[in-house]
């Protein structure tokens, strides 16, 4: 076990307690989550697995502060996110979270630099400081010298690395990755996973990653398996086979 668990006196970074999510009402109601309990500590690298429709995406949306639970509590550093307004959740995302998506989700016809700059612009940072941080982030993902290329001029692997640079440029507490290797071949997937592992180890960024592939999940220190809206394992830490 190579995990460096955070100091046990540290309270959880992320805690889900009895979280349910119901879409629709009455007989048409769809229970996406049926009571999820989860603790994630600072510095962990967690893989979330499960078949489609098992509720893992819903859970990720709640952890990403994009959605709120129907019932139960989601605490981020002790703050009950369910009580926050839409704009307050946006500020939480702005200051503590980074996102990496399966489809990269970069702005089209916009240079790598401008894409990476985007979260800093919303933080109201001065342009020179922004530029320095962006170049540093692009260097960290191995794209030094590619800052003026647009997504159309970059390969899939490079686009995903730009997306990772955008996610880590703000030094977030948590990086949420939704099938980051889903659109990449195995060589590019390994590159991406190694980058994520590096950021997890060297910068202490907590990573929560949804994946279908056991190979990719193997990079994480912990796996959480979803089935039918509940967690079927992994309530305890470090039960990696």
């Amino acid at each position, binding site marked *: 076990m190579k995990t460096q668990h955070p100091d046990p006196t540290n309270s959880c970074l992320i805690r889900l307690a009895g979280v349910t999510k119901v879409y629709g009402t009455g007989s048409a109601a769809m229970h996406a989550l049926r009571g999820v309990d989860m603790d994630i500590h600072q510095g962990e690298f967690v893989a979330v697995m499960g078949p489609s429709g098992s509720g893992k995406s819903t859970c990720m949306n709640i952890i990403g502060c*994009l959605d709120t639970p129907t019932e139960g509590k989601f605490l981020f550093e002790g703050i009950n996110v369910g009580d926050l307004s839409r*704009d307050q959740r*946006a*500020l939480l995302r702005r200051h503590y979270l980074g996102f990496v998506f399966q489809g990269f989700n970069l702005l089209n016809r916009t240079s790598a630099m401008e894409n990476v700059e985007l979260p800093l612009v*919303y933080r109201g940072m001065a342009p020179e400081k922004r530029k320095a941080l962006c170049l540093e982030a692009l260097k960290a993902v191995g794209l030094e010298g590619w800052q003026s290329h647009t997504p159309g001029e970059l390969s899939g692997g490079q686009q995903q690395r730009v997306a990772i640079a955008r996610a880590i440029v703000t030094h977030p507490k948590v990086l949420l990755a939704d099938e980051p290797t889903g659109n990449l071949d195995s060589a590019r997937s390994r590159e991406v996973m190694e980058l994520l592992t590096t950021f997890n180890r060297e910068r202490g960024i907590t990573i929560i990653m949804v994946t279908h592939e056991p190979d990719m999940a193997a990079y994480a220190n912990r796996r959480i398996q979803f089935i039918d809206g509940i967690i079927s394992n992994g309530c305890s830490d470090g039960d990696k086979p």
Partner: protein
Amino acid sequence: MFWETILLAQREIRRNVLRSSLTILGIVIGVAAVITMVTLGGGVTAQVTSDIAKLGSNLLQVRPGQGFRGPGGTRSSAPNFKIADAEAIAKEISGIQAVAPNASRGTQAIYGNENWRTSITGSTNDFLRTRDWQIEYGREFTGSEMRSGQSVCILGATVKKELFGAQNPLDTSIRLQKLSCQVVGVLESKGQSSFGTDQDDFILIPIRTFHRRIAGNTDVTTIFVSARDGVSTEKVQRDIEDLMRQRRNIAQAREDDFNVRDMKEIMSTLTGTTRVLTGLLGAVAAVSLLVGGIGIMNIMLVSVTERTREIGIRLAIGAREKEVLMQFLVEAVVLSCFGGFVGIVLGLGTAALACSALNVPFVWNPGIVAVAFLFSGAVGIVFGYFPAQKAARLDPIEALRHE
């Protein structure tokens, strides 16, 4: 952050040049139309003003009735003047240069096979003086011709051209109704008036001839009076009013049954008319500006749908509602202001061309330019708000899943 938003907006606009230009087309046309109409109207007003000033600011018109601005009907009930009234003005009022009694009637003028519909004016040589007409060739009436009412006439340039072409009309005879009339002179051309009528289309005959042979009465419908240079027209006007009240036996309490107007009054009536016309045209143009605004809203709505994913990304990264709203609103305003700017340049250019084509002075109004620019900005805010709000209220999860 605000400057940042403007930079972002103009970057976004440049990214899709064709669509952006089509979007602002409506605004461009609207603003250009407003600017052209108003500038042209201003030029025409200036033209009319200077035309009338050329007619002579010392010219007074005395007419029966209460003037064409009064209620209808009073004019016909008021008795016409007689030649004696004009003679009394000339004799009793000081500071007068010329007095011309005047009566006219439409008629057919015939020379050989040529035939022209025109009007006959009966007056004296003073008519030429008060209205500043010059004889091109031939002569004025003689004293005895005027006194005894002989059948002689002076032709306006248009009548001469229509009846005689290039021939010399002097000493030939033309037929006016039953009257055979000898041509003694031709007037210099004055061209079109600002009213749009041909000033050269008339035939002048001595007023006594007109009374006896054409009208069959002795009525005078207008008396033209020109004051001497340096004499106040207001004073002459008052003197004429007093004299006429006396001659027409108007009791103290009753109103005048005639009116004396100087060119300043006529000028203000005319410029008032052009102003109303300019206003109406401007209003029509403003409607097209409104349509331009709807065009912006249309394209912004399409743009929001098209950029749903981008909005999702921005929201996920931590943009607040108001920041997304601002982004799209600023984009709409920058677009419409740019459209307004292009429209102003285009409108002033068109107006300058039209003014030179119509031979009207080019007078641009900075106030209208400023209003048009601000209005186009306001159009951007009003019609950009709804699409911007739609963008800001998107659900980030749905938006990221779009496409």
